[in-house]
């Protein structure tokens, strides 16, 4: 079993936290994991992405040329990285900010999730990354939703643990939305 995913957005969307939570969840399920972040020198507003590889055996390259899944949280990420998705792969996009038609590929499965709307409805637009993670887990089975929610404890500093229930809810809603899609 091997899963690789490229999660991309602009700085501040929580792309790196999403990658961390996913990694902790996979590690907790006994898998081998690599998490490789890449971001600009800007703290906010620049591009940010991370590659997570989850494997039963050795991870091998933490750098992935053609990921089987791209999670695109903003239009720029889809424009820049959409062509890299492995044929037969999945593109999970944030339809609140991304126009699915611009991908222009018929060889990947496109799943549109209005992540900003869902997160805002649940009380905080900053939870887009958690909505995305829920959708990813649902579509790939790379990790369980339970492990993801549990991983928040390891990935977040203790002072933020009070936000865990809301974030777990965002994951669940993202998963539901992907299931319907």
């Amino acid at each position: 079993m091997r899963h690789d995913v490229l999660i991309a957005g602009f700085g501040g969307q929580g792309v790196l936290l999403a990658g961390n939570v996913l990694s902790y969840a996979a590690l907790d399920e006994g898998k081998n994991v690599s998490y490789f972040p890449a971001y600009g020198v800007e703290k906010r507003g620049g591009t940010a992405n991370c590659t997570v590889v989850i494997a039963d055996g050795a991870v091998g390259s933490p750098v992935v040329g053609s990921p089987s899944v791209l999670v695109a949280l903003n239009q720029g990420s889809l424009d820049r990285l959409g062509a890299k998705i492995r044929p037969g792969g999945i593109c999970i996009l944030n339809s609140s900010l991304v126009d699915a038609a611009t991908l222009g590929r018929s060889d990947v499965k496109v799943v549109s999730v209005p992540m900003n709307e869902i997160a805002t409805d649940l009380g905080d637009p900053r939870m887009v990354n958690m909505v995305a993670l829920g959708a990813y887990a649902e579509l790939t089975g790379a990790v369980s939703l339970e492990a993801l929610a549990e991983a928040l404890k390891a990935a977040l500093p203790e002072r933020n643990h009070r936000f865990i229930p809301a974030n777990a809810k965002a994951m669940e809603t993202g998963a539901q939305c992907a299931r319907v899609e």
Partner: protein
Amino acid sequence: MSKRLFVKGNEAAAMGAIEAGCRYYFGYPITPQSDIPEYLSRELPKLNGEFIQAESEVAAINMLLGASACGVRAMTSSSSPGISLKQEGISYMAGAELPGVIINISRSGPGLGGIDASQSDYFQSVKGGGHGGYRIAVLAPNSVQEMYDLTMHAFDLADQYRTPVMVLGDSVIGQMKEALVPNPRPNRELPAKGWAVRGKSGGEQRIVKSLFLGDGELEAHNWRLHAKYKQMMDVECLSEEFETADAKLLVTAYGSVARIAHTAVAMAREEGLKVGLFRPITLCPFPEKALKAAGERAGRILDIELNTGQMVEDVRLAVGSNVEVSFYGRPPGAGSLPSPEELLDQIRKHYA
């Protein structure tokens, strides 16, 4: 099995230093290695250690020199431009035979360059770096686990041979997170530090210096340093081989790009190509005997680096003219990191 932690390569190196007994760190922040001083600034005071953010890289390396002269385990870290600034101090430490660990999480150059993964500091690291004709041991981890293990090993080598030792990584190895098993420090028997200056207390005077003005004195000193390097060549070379036994093409790569090449070699094997990977772990001393054997078996080598060709010179020297050596490089910069698929293409091209 002990618990698996999930940490950055940089943090793993800092943890390895602490496990190795390092309690003194001197540094100046620079991307992409600042997690090392960040971690140590938090943890060393708890252990009655000392963390000092120096006013410059030059000050930091000289603080390392001073601490090391007192016989304690100490470390500094930086990234390429900062390491250039430290070279004078490293030369003085090599001359004065002082142990000490220097971590270089290198970035792309020349000059200010960029912060992307790079292997452009190979020459500087393994051929001396500073003035005066010396060599220091250079270790090249390719995983978070090795950042931890090899940093511990660096301290042992430094004390064993009384030499500065460098751990050379880049932003891939430093910034990525993987599982880490925090193994206990290896139990290596090391020589006593009878040379350390800790106060005379009625005993013999000890002097730590790199100045030798007596007739023939400096020449003898240089030969002694050279003999230590030869001894390291004999017993301290480390390398790793993957699928090399029946390989018709041997890929050579170290550090971050060796991880990418490993996957490319595995993909080539799935296509039925007999390809193997040879990964030097010690870049200095360079594992030339093991490479010569593996290279001669394969008859053909493809060296892959994140630069325009540096280690390839040592590969050619190691295997001689009977083995054909080709090179594929991606000089550093944004967007220059090769994918496994790209390296697989190169393997196919050179296999035929």
